[in-house]
């Protein structure tokens, strides 16, 4: 018998080798995935982590420097401190907002009839499908008079000279946040949709009989507890997306952005890893980013466990 959930006490008393052999089917199922995972994910991550304690310029052999990279990051690298501030600012706004938006839209769409629902899902998922169409926001907010918003405002006589939306630090952050939000209905959103559709209607019927009064109560006490696994998945997607923000920003406002107004940790990583080839330093940045994401994941997990209570 493979399933040991029935009687764990008995299972635990058996010797380790016997248990491994007894579970051989499980290991066999995982073999293809895990061999790829170990070679192409775990090993590179481990290498990168170890490199973070070295000086490595790709040409010479890595030289062990202990915690020097980390110390330099926090004591000498002023731009990195700006990057941390920007990343947190962006992530704390777009992460939760994008997550709630995904969940709200998925929940509302779920009420529609099947045909209309598929169509609406497509509309909301469209930004994620569309590759680089988000650059259209760049055109809309372009700093010259050919930018749509500037053209419109100039024509109506609201402004005399065009506003530098993509260069003026005052406008860069809101612009980047808006576009990130627009792009945030991705994998998490689709998993919410699929999760909601997997909930048996019987639960709602039972809940209505048990005295659930309105759709809010239904959401909190029935729907959300039944899709906890999907909520967790969506949260990880939001966290990695929000803290890993970088490419979209560069495409919209350039890299580096004016006065580092939208310089994120990812940009800093790109700078040292992809341009200066200081791989040890870049690895230290990546490890720090990883630590942030792990901590936020832990915090979110705690919050999610309160659902339905």
């Amino acid at each position, binding site marked *: 018998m493979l399933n040991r959930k029935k009687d764990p006490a008995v299972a635990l008393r058996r010797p380790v080798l016997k248990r491994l052999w007894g579970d051989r089917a499980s290991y066999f199922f995982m073999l293809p995935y895990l061999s790829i995972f170990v070679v192409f994910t775990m090993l590179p991550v481990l290498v990168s982590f170890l490199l973070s304690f070295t000086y490595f310029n790709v040409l010479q052999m890595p030289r062990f420097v202990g915690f020097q990279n980390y110390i330099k990051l926090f004591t000498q690298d002023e731009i990195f401190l700006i990057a941390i501030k920007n990343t947190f600012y962006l992530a704390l706004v777009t992460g939760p907002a994008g997550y709630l938006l995904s969940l709200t839209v998925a929940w509302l769409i779920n009420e529609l009839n099947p045909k209309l629902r598929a169509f609406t899902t497509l*509309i909301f998922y469209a930004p994620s499908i569309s590759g680089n169409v988000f650059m259209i926001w760049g055109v809309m907010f372009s700093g010259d008079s050919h930018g749509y918003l500037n053209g419109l405002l100039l024509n109506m006589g609201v402004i005399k000279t065009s506003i530098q939306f993509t260069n003026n630090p005052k406008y860069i952050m809101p612009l980047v946040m808006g576009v990130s939000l627009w792009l945030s209905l991705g994998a998490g959103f689709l998993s919410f949709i699929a999760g909601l559709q997997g909930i048996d209607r019987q639960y709602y019927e039972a809940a209505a009989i048990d005295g659930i009064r309105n759709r809010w109560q239904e959401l909190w006490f029935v729907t959300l507890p039944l899709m906890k696994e999907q909520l967790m998945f969506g949260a990880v997607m939001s966290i990695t997306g929000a803290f890993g923000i970088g490419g979209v920003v560069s495409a919209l406002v350039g890299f580096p952005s004016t006065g580092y107004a939208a310089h994120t940790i990812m940009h800093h990583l790109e700078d040292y890893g992809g341009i200066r080839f200081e791989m040890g330093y870049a690895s230290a940045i990546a490890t720090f980013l990883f630590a942030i994401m792990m901590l936020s994941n832990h915090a979110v997990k705690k919050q999610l466990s309160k659902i339905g209570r």
Partner: protein
Amino acid sequence: MRARGRRLFNRSLGGNMLIYSFLMLLGVIMVLPMVYAVSSAFKPLNEMWIFPPRFFVQNPTGDNFSSLFGALGESYVPFTRYLFNTVCISVIGTAGHVVISSLCAYPLAKHRFIGSKVIFHMIVMSLMFTSVATGLANYLILSKLGWIDSYLAILIPGFGGSLGLYLMKQFMESNVPDSILESARIDGAAEWRIFWRIVMPIVKPAWLTLIIFSFNGFWSMGGNAYIYNENLKTLNYAISQIVSGGLARAGAGAAASVLMMIPPILIFVITQSNIVETMASSGMKE
């Protein structure tokens, strides 16, 4: 799910109206850039740069598309080769990723064995380590294996993506009841059979969803550091080369982004309509 047609409980007309108008408004914002992209694809070159800028095309023309295909026809490698590469990578990559990660997700979600928790945690953690920092190590590993300049360099690492496994595991955990597995085992079904005949049909919405974003990811893959042979490069790479040809190619670029959107949308429509069908026809779940 049998009760799909019956009325919903706990709903009010006012609430519904509010919800629909909210969705409409938001939907317009989401879809606006798409409309613009399609409209731009049909703009003649002189309309792209007029002042004041116009959102909709005035004199639609197919010039952009013919200029795109003209440029693709002049390339050193025939356009069909790029298309073939991209279709191959997208189809094989998606199929392999879905099967391999589902196989691994099943024991992680439904069996308990030595190492199951540790393995799962490591996979989720790996999602949070950015691939920018691991590129160098990946390159070294691929070159040691001799896979540089072959499909393998893209496909095999793609099979082992963490995202798909995580999604499948979460759905199997919440949607597949232990009692069904238990009774199948009592009936003498082998794990292999249980996986294909019971688990996978129940989590059909999950793998249909996974197909959507896995295909989308492979399809939009551009040039990368592992492929140098022009004959093996992707359509997206070829198009980005054409578009980088400056202002004169802006029209062709607009046409290309519209054409490149079509296959992912088709996949989306096919899989979504399948999800709806599964839901309507199955009375699964205990």
